[in-house]
Protein backbone atom coordinates (compact mmCIF):
# COMPACT_ATOMS: atom_id res chain seq x y z
CA UNK A 1 0.00 0.00 0.00
CA UNK A 2 2.77 2.41 0.92
CA UNK A 3 4.33 1.64 -2.43
CA UNK A 4 1.16 2.63 -4.31
CA UNK A 5 1.03 5.93 -2.46
CA UNK A 6 4.70 6.62 -3.08
CA UNK A 7 4.53 5.74 -6.76
CA UNK A 8 1.44 7.84 -7.36
CA UNK A 9 3.16 10.70 -5.55
CA UNK A 10 6.20 10.20 -7.77
CA UNK A 11 4.11 10.33 -10.93
CA UNK A 12 2.39 13.49 -9.71
CA UNK A 13 5.70 15.11 -8.78
CA UNK A 14 7.18 14.11 -12.13
CA UNK A 15 4.29 15.83 -13.91
CA UNK A 16 4.85 18.91 -11.83
CA UNK A 17 8.58 18.82 -12.55
CA UNK A 18 8.00 18.64 -16.28
CA UNK A 19 5.09 21.06 -16.61
CA UNK A 20 6.19 23.79 -14.17
CA UNK A 21 7.11 27.04 -15.90
CA UNK A 22 9.68 28.12 -13.33
CA UNK A 23 12.91 26.21 -13.80
CA UNK A 24 13.94 26.35 -10.15
CA UNK A 25 10.62 24.89 -8.99
CA UNK A 26 10.84 22.07 -11.44
CA UNK A 27 14.33 21.17 -10.23
CA UNK A 28 12.95 21.03 -6.69
CA UNK A 29 10.06 18.87 -7.86
CA UNK A 30 12.56 16.50 -9.44
CA UNK A 31 14.24 16.31 -6.06
CA UNK A 32 10.90 15.31 -4.58
CA UNK A 33 10.68 12.42 -7.04
CA UNK A 34 14.16 11.30 -6.09
CA UNK A 35 13.54 11.42 -2.35
CA UNK A 36 10.25 9.55 -2.77
CA UNK A 37 12.22 6.92 -4.67
CA UNK A 38 14.62 6.76 -1.74
CA UNK A 39 11.71 6.11 0.65
CA UNK A 40 10.34 3.46 -1.70
CA UNK A 41 13.71 1.70 -1.66
CA UNK A 42 13.46 1.45 2.13
CA UNK A 43 9.97 -0.02 1.85
CA UNK A 44 11.14 -2.72 -0.57
CA UNK A 45 14.02 -3.63 1.76
CA UNK A 46 16.90 -2.16 -0.19
CA UNK A 47 18.84 -0.09 2.36
CA UNK A 48 22.02 0.08 0.26
CA UNK A 49 20.10 1.64 -2.59
CA UNK A 50 18.29 4.01 -0.27
CA UNK A 51 21.56 5.42 1.08
CA UNK A 52 23.08 5.70 -2.38
CA UNK A 53 19.99 7.29 -3.89
CA UNK A 54 19.81 9.81 -1.04
CA UNK A 55 23.35 11.08 -1.44
CA UNK A 56 23.26 10.97 -5.24
CA UNK A 57 20.05 12.98 -5.23
CA UNK A 58 21.60 15.63 -2.99
CA UNK A 59 24.62 15.92 -5.24
CA UNK A 60 22.48 16.09 -8.39
CA UNK A 61 20.33 18.82 -6.86
CA UNK A 62 23.35 20.87 -5.83
CA UNK A 63 24.82 20.68 -9.32
CA UNK A 64 21.50 21.36 -11.04
CA UNK A 65 20.67 24.30 -8.79
CA UNK A 66 24.10 25.78 -9.39
CA UNK A 67 23.51 25.36 -13.10
CA UNK A 68 20.10 26.97 -13.18
CA UNK A 69 20.15 29.60 -10.46
CA UNK A 70 20.71 33.24 -11.39
CA UNK A 71 20.53 32.48 -15.08
CA UNK A 72 18.23 35.05 -16.60
CA UNK A 73 16.02 32.57 -18.33
CA UNK A 74 13.47 34.06 -20.66
CA UNK A 75 10.09 32.44 -20.22
CA UNK A 76 10.01 29.72 -22.82
CA UNK A 77 6.65 29.62 -24.51
CA UNK A 78 6.02 26.02 -25.34
CA UNK A 79 5.04 25.60 -28.96
CA UNK A 80 1.67 23.89 -28.91
CA UNK A 81 2.01 21.85 -32.02
CA UNK A 82 -1.01 19.62 -31.74
CA UNK A 83 0.41 17.05 -34.12
CA UNK A 84 3.64 16.39 -32.24
CA UNK A 85 1.95 16.22 -28.87
CA UNK A 86 -0.66 13.86 -30.24
CA UNK A 87 2.04 11.68 -31.81
CA UNK A 88 3.90 11.49 -28.51
CA UNK A 89 0.72 10.66 -26.62
CA UNK A 90 -0.26 7.98 -29.12
CA UNK A 91 3.21 6.47 -28.88
CA UNK A 92 2.96 6.48 -25.09
CA UNK A 93 -0.48 4.86 -25.23
CA UNK A 94 0.70 2.09 -27.56
CA UNK A 95 3.77 1.58 -25.42
CA UNK A 96 1.65 1.35 -22.26
CA UNK A 97 -0.74 -1.13 -23.87
CA UNK A 98 1.98 -3.51 -24.99
CA UNK A 99 3.95 -3.17 -21.79
CA UNK A 100 0.77 -4.06 -19.88
CA UNK A 101 0.52 -7.22 -21.95
CA UNK A 102 4.16 -8.02 -21.26
CA UNK A 103 3.86 -7.28 -17.56
CA UNK A 104 1.06 -9.82 -17.24
CA UNK A 105 3.49 -12.52 -18.28
CA UNK A 106 6.04 -11.61 -15.63
CA UNK A 107 5.95 -13.52 -12.36
CA UNK A 108 3.53 -12.01 -9.84
CA UNK A 109 4.69 -9.17 -7.67
CA UNK A 110 6.32 -10.43 -4.49
CA UNK A 111 7.09 -13.87 -5.86
CA UNK A 112 10.27 -13.58 -7.91
CA UNK A 113 11.77 -16.66 -9.52
CA UNK A 114 15.24 -16.34 -7.97
CA UNK A 115 16.84 -19.08 -10.03
CA UNK A 116 20.43 -17.87 -10.02
CA UNK A 117 20.18 -15.88 -6.84
CA UNK A 118 19.45 -18.86 -4.63
CA UNK A 119 23.07 -19.83 -4.80
CA UNK A 120 24.15 -16.34 -3.78
CA UNK A 121 21.93 -16.58 -0.74
CA UNK A 122 23.02 -20.01 0.34
CA UNK A 123 26.74 -19.71 -0.22
CA UNK A 124 27.37 -16.03 -0.87
CA UNK A 125 28.25 -15.05 2.67
CA UNK A 126 30.62 -17.96 3.12
CA UNK A 127 32.30 -17.68 -0.25
CA UNK A 128 32.84 -13.94 -0.27
CA UNK A 129 33.07 -13.39 3.47
CA UNK A 130 30.77 -10.39 3.23
CA UNK A 131 27.58 -10.53 5.27
CA UNK A 132 26.06 -7.73 3.21
CA UNK A 133 25.02 -9.76 0.19
CA UNK A 134 24.62 -6.73 -2.06
CA UNK A 135 28.22 -5.74 -1.42
CA UNK A 136 29.20 -9.36 -1.93
CA UNK A 137 27.51 -9.38 -5.33
CA UNK A 138 28.77 -5.95 -6.34
CA UNK A 139 32.36 -6.43 -5.33
CA UNK A 140 32.93 -10.14 -5.73
CA UNK A 141 30.50 -12.06 -7.92
CA UNK A 142 30.04 -9.15 -10.29
CA UNK A 143 33.13 -7.08 -9.50
CA UNK A 144 33.82 -6.75 -13.21
CA UNK A 145 30.65 -4.67 -13.54
CA UNK A 146 31.90 -2.45 -10.77
CA UNK A 147 35.15 -1.92 -12.63
CA UNK A 148 33.04 -0.84 -15.58
CA UNK A 149 31.01 1.45 -13.38
CA UNK A 150 34.16 3.05 -12.01
CA UNK A 151 35.42 3.53 -15.55
CA UNK A 152 32.12 5.14 -16.58
CA UNK A 153 32.35 7.60 -13.71
CA UNK A 154 35.97 8.27 -14.57
CA UNK A 155 35.00 8.93 -18.19
CA UNK A 156 32.30 11.33 -17.04
CA UNK A 157 34.69 13.24 -14.76
CA UNK A 158 37.33 13.57 -17.45
CA UNK A 159 34.60 14.46 -19.93
CA UNK A 160 33.23 17.21 -17.72
CA UNK A 161 36.67 18.68 -17.10
CA UNK A 162 37.21 18.51 -20.87
CA UNK A 163 33.93 20.15 -21.78
CA UNK A 164 34.44 22.95 -19.26
CA UNK A 165 37.88 23.93 -20.59
CA UNK A 166 38.29 27.61 -21.37
CA UNK A 167 39.57 27.19 -24.89
CA UNK A 168 39.09 24.15 -27.02
CA UNK A 169 41.48 24.87 -29.86
CA UNK A 170 44.97 26.18 -29.77
CA UNK A 171 45.85 28.90 -32.20
CA UNK A 172 43.79 30.72 -34.78
CA UNK A 173 40.58 28.80 -35.23
CA UNK A 174 37.67 30.55 -33.47
Amino acid at each position, binding site marked *: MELYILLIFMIFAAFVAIEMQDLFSSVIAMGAVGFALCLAFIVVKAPDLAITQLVVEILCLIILIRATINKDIPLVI*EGRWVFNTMATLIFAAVFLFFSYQAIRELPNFGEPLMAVVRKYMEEGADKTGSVNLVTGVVLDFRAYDTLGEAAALFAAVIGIVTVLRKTGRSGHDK
Partner: protein
Amino acid sequence: MGLYFLCIILFCVGLYGVLRKRNIVKIIIGLAIMNYSISMFFVLLGYKFNGRAPIESQDQTIANMVDPLPQALVLTSIVIALAVMALLIAIAIRIYDRYGTFDITKIKRLRG
Protein backbone atom coordinates in the same frame (compact mmCIF):
# COMPACT_ATOMS: atom_id res chain seq x y z
CA MET B 1 1.10 -5.97 -11.25
CA GLY B 2 -0.33 -2.54 -10.67
CA LEU B 3 2.97 -1.38 -9.25
CA TYR B 4 4.84 -2.45 -12.36
CA PHE B 5 2.35 -0.57 -14.48
CA LEU B 6 2.73 2.58 -12.39
CA CYS B 7 6.48 2.38 -12.99
CA ILE B 8 5.88 2.23 -16.73
CA ILE B 9 3.59 5.24 -16.48
CA LEU B 10 6.37 7.12 -14.69
CA PHE B 11 8.70 6.09 -17.51
CA CYS B 12 6.27 7.50 -20.06
CA VAL B 13 6.02 10.79 -18.16
CA GLY B 14 9.79 11.09 -18.35
CA LEU B 15 9.79 10.16 -22.03
CA TYR B 16 7.14 12.81 -22.68
CA GLY B 17 9.38 15.36 -21.02
CA VAL B 18 12.34 14.38 -23.16
CA LEU B 19 10.45 14.36 -26.43
CA ARG B 20 8.18 17.37 -26.08
CA LYS B 21 9.96 19.97 -23.94
CA ARG B 22 12.04 22.70 -25.48
CA ASN B 23 14.05 23.65 -22.43
CA ILE B 24 17.35 21.80 -22.05
CA VAL B 25 17.03 21.55 -18.27
CA LYS B 26 13.56 20.08 -18.63
CA ILE B 27 14.94 17.47 -21.00
CA ILE B 28 17.60 16.51 -18.46
CA ILE B 29 14.94 16.28 -15.75
CA GLY B 30 12.86 14.03 -17.98
CA LEU B 31 15.84 11.76 -18.49
CA ALA B 32 16.44 11.57 -14.75
CA ILE B 33 12.82 10.60 -14.19
CA MET B 34 13.13 7.82 -16.76
CA ASN B 35 16.14 6.49 -14.88
CA TYR B 36 14.28 6.62 -11.56
CA SER B 37 11.38 4.68 -12.99
CA ILE B 38 13.59 1.90 -14.30
CA SER B 39 15.45 1.64 -10.99
CA MET B 40 12.16 1.32 -9.17
CA PHE B 41 10.86 -1.25 -11.64
CA PHE B 42 13.97 -3.38 -11.40
CA VAL B 43 14.02 -3.37 -7.60
CA LEU B 44 10.32 -4.20 -7.47
CA LEU B 45 11.02 -7.23 -9.65
CA GLY B 46 13.19 -8.64 -6.89
CA TYR B 47 10.83 -7.94 -3.98
CA LYS B 48 9.54 -10.87 -2.00
CA PHE B 49 6.55 -10.69 0.35
CA ASN B 50 7.67 -10.60 3.98
CA GLY B 51 11.27 -10.68 2.83
CA ARG B 52 14.20 -9.24 4.74
CA ALA B 53 16.91 -6.93 3.54
CA PRO B 54 19.76 -8.98 2.04
CA ILE B 55 22.11 -8.49 4.98
CA GLU B 56 22.77 -11.31 7.37
CA SER B 57 22.71 -10.66 11.04
CA GLN B 58 23.82 -12.79 13.90
CA ASP B 59 20.49 -14.15 15.07
CA GLN B 60 18.55 -14.70 11.87
CA THR B 61 18.33 -17.56 9.42
CA ILE B 62 18.80 -17.13 5.73
CA ALA B 63 15.36 -18.31 4.68
CA ASN B 64 13.35 -15.33 3.53
CA MET B 65 15.29 -12.63 1.80
CA VAL B 66 14.57 -10.25 -1.08
CA ASP B 67 16.54 -10.75 -4.30
CA PRO B 68 19.96 -9.05 -3.89
CA LEU B 69 20.93 -9.19 -7.58
CA PRO B 70 18.60 -6.44 -8.88
CA GLN B 71 19.77 -4.25 -6.03
CA ALA B 72 23.37 -4.73 -7.07
CA LEU B 73 22.52 -3.96 -10.70
CA VAL B 74 20.52 -0.87 -9.82
CA LEU B 75 23.39 0.33 -7.65
CA THR B 76 25.60 0.19 -10.74
CA SER B 77 23.00 1.84 -12.92
CA ILE B 78 22.42 4.70 -10.44
CA VAL B 79 26.11 5.53 -10.65
CA ILE B 80 26.07 5.43 -14.43
CA ALA B 81 22.96 7.61 -14.49
CA LEU B 82 24.70 10.10 -12.21
CA ALA B 83 27.69 10.16 -14.54
CA VAL B 84 25.53 10.81 -17.61
CA MET B 85 23.49 13.44 -15.76
CA ALA B 86 26.58 15.31 -14.65
CA LEU B 87 28.04 15.26 -18.16
CA LEU B 88 24.75 16.49 -19.63
CA ILE B 89 24.56 19.31 -17.11
CA ALA B 90 28.12 20.33 -17.94
CA ILE B 91 27.30 20.40 -21.66
CA ALA B 92 24.11 22.37 -20.91
CA ILE B 93 26.05 24.97 -18.91
CA ARG B 94 28.51 25.33 -21.75
CA ILE B 95 25.69 25.66 -24.26
CA TYR B 96 24.20 28.41 -22.10
CA ASP B 97 27.58 30.10 -22.24
CA ARG B 98 27.76 30.01 -25.98
CA TYR B 99 24.18 30.60 -27.02
CA GLY B 100 22.82 32.45 -23.98
CA THR B 101 19.67 30.36 -23.84
CA PHE B 102 18.31 27.02 -22.73
CA ASP B 103 15.75 26.89 -25.56
CA ILE B 104 16.55 24.14 -28.06
CA THR B 105 14.60 25.75 -30.87
CA LYS B 106 17.04 28.67 -30.71
CA ILE B 107 20.06 26.38 -30.62
CA LYS B 108 20.12 25.47 -34.27
CA ARG B 109 23.29 25.94 -36.13
CA LEU B 110 23.32 22.47 -37.59
CA ARG B 111 20.81 21.80 -40.30
CA GLY B 112 20.15 19.56 -43.25
